[in-house]
């Protein structure tokens, strides 16, 4: 099976979907002539022309609204927001319009819109460009939110998102763009939205993660195997709908759970997962669920300070040891 990067997986999928369905179009800042701030749309303007790959002004509220209108009238826009931080000026369009139109107009119209955007903080981009807001959207009924961790899932979920008739927020990560993985070339597979995956089997503790933190969890699981600790990694892949049965089934087997996410600790994704576990696996727990999340500060610009505010392999290892305390 060919090994490609996460970036290539996204780029290939966008090209394939543009070719497959004439109603698909891409919109966003610098995605055409500049070929994308992170080169996700490289070569697509040249191949599909300016009617299918549309450079927009720096006006997120305007072009997200435009995309919602286009989706209502039958197109399938895929909007790139340069980073999730910039979606804040368009949040009224997403939360008050895209998510609710299908409900509020009696099912007369649907909004088959995809908003792709990288989330999280890496590379000293400062406090306003390093945030994780996927929980804001995962909170909102009427939206779907996916966050793939591997090139395979990136491809399968982007296909699913573009072909879905509801608005989907597609969460990427700058730190994942250059990661590699096997992706079949002549296979029109789709990763269904709303299904988590057990990325690694283990018996001592379940680590629940998504996006970049799944990659961290996989490395940690490998390292801890040498210590004789068997870590199971559940990759959520979808934040809404949330695949609660897969999480619960895993925790019932391992009796212990650590949840890791890049967002801030209070009111974050980890809180939702931990609450789910105590509701549905209470009688299977051998220790309180541990949460690993970001420190509740604006992300510092300084590299060393920035590193300690974000969850890391070390903080995950610490939490795993804590949840395993006393286990023989």
């Amino acid at each position, binding site marked *: 099976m060919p090994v490609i990067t996460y970036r290539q997986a996204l780029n290939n999928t966008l090209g394939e979907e543009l070719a497959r369905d004439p109603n698909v179009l891409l919109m966003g800042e610098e995605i055409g002539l500049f070929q994308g701030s992170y080169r996700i749309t490289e070569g697509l303007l040249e191949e599909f022309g300016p009617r299918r790959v549309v450079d927009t002004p720096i006006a997120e509220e305007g072009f997200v609204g435009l995309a919602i209108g286009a989706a209502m009238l039958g197109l399938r826009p895929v909007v790139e927001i340069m980073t999730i931080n910039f979606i804040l000026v368009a949040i009224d369009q997403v939360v008050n319009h895209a998510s609710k139109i299908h409900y509020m107009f009696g099912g007369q119209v649907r909004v088959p819109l995809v908003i792709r955007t990288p989330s999280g903080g890496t590379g000293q981009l400062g406090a306003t460009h390093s945030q994780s807001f996927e929980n804001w959207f995962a909170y909102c009924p009427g939206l779907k939110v996916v966050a793939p961790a591997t090139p395979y899932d990136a491809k399968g979920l982007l296909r699913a998102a573009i072909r879905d008739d509801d608005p989907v927020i597609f969460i990427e990560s700058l730190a994942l763009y250059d990661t590699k993985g096997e992706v079949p070339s002549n296979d029109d597979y789709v990763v269904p939205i709303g299904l988590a995956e057990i990325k690694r089997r283990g018996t001592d503790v379940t680590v629940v993660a998504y996006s970049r933190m799944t990659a961290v969890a996989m490395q940690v699981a490998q390292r801890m195997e040498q210590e004789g600790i068997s870590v199971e990694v559940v990759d959520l892949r979808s934040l809404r709908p949330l695949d609660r049965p897969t999480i619960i089934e895993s925790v019932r087997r391992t009796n212990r759970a650590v949840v890791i996410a890049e967002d801030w600790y209070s009111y974050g994704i980890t809180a939702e997962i931990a609450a789910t576990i105590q509701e549905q696996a209470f*009688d299977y727990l051998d220790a309180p669920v541990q949460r690993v999340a970001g420190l509740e500060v604006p992300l510092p610009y300084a590299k060393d300070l920035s590193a300690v505010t974000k969850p890391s392999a070390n903080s995950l290892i610490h939490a795993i040891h804590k949840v395993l305390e006393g286990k023989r």
Partner: protein
Amino acid sequence: MADVTMPRLSDTMSEGTVGRWLKNVGDQVAVGEIIAEIETDKATMELESFDAGTLQRIVIPAGQMVPIGEVIAYIGDAALPMEATPAVNGAEEGRVKASPVARRLADELGVDLRQVTGSGPGGRIIKDDVEMFAAPRKPGATIPRPARAAVPPAPAPATGSSVAPMSRMRKAISRAMSDSKPGVPHISVTMEIAMDAAMALREQIIASGTKVSLNDLVVKAAAKALRAVPTVNTSYASGPDGQPAIASHPAVHVSVAVSLADGLIAPVVRDADTKSVGTISAEIRAMVARARDGKIAPHELDGATFQVTNLGMFGVVEFSSIITVPQAASLAVGAVRKVPVVRGDQIVIGQVMNVTLSVDHRVVDGAVAAQYLQELKKLLESPVGILI
């Protein structure tokens, strides 16, 4: 915010009782201020605060006993509200602390959780504990062996002690002894000592105006004998490699068991081999007086390398004593008795005393114990040696 924890006030203290709180929640506390009284197995001590601030919460009320290191109160900034902190013990107020899955499993297996020891945080019973408890003992023809874990933990050697690894033979002896006698494997060796000369010496010292008991003479002689047979002045220890080792103590600190109304304590005469009998006598008397008032300081009960215990005043002929870890030996002293003895070809009235040395057989063998008693006998039978 700072934790106030149950302090370790003596070598043997593993838990302490909060006698009474001298500060109330909300009171200001300065560094060094006395905030509570702690009752140990030996004495009542005052607890000084290491921190300044407001006493925000009393976790352990007066009268309750907790292990050392346990949080008994919090001192912090008055502006900060205190979050409720759960008590840390496995069982609190009759409720057994167990994880949900341990509880469910115990239900399924019919295990009474009150009988299970918890290995989780704060003594919480976890699934493994229930499984271990419920595991049926496998029948078989093998001779049961006590668990190796029954060997008491080897304490870190006292500062300044030299630690030498055990020889293979020593290790084998050490292991065999622990297997047979879990805990510290004691053996005891008894010797009869003629005390005529020692009694006469005591009379002379008293006549010269210095108060001295027979036991003071024994303490001094025991300390000098330790110098002659230093193998007895050691501890079973853990070496830097985690392997069993022997710590040899450079100083001779002898503790003297003293009975109190409700138990006993063992104040320590430091460097007893170098002190005069008069000094030893005065020190012991002062410490005993402080102990009876509950005022003895923790350092006065710490650091002994050897112990002397005497039941002679009750007319006890001989007995064997239990070693106080991490010491390697304990000397049990019986009464001085008048007995018929053969001197030359005549039966005369002699004064004799039986002493029994208990040793930790992991580090001291019977022959060494006998050598030590020979040395002690020599010193007490020609007691001029203990004066110089």
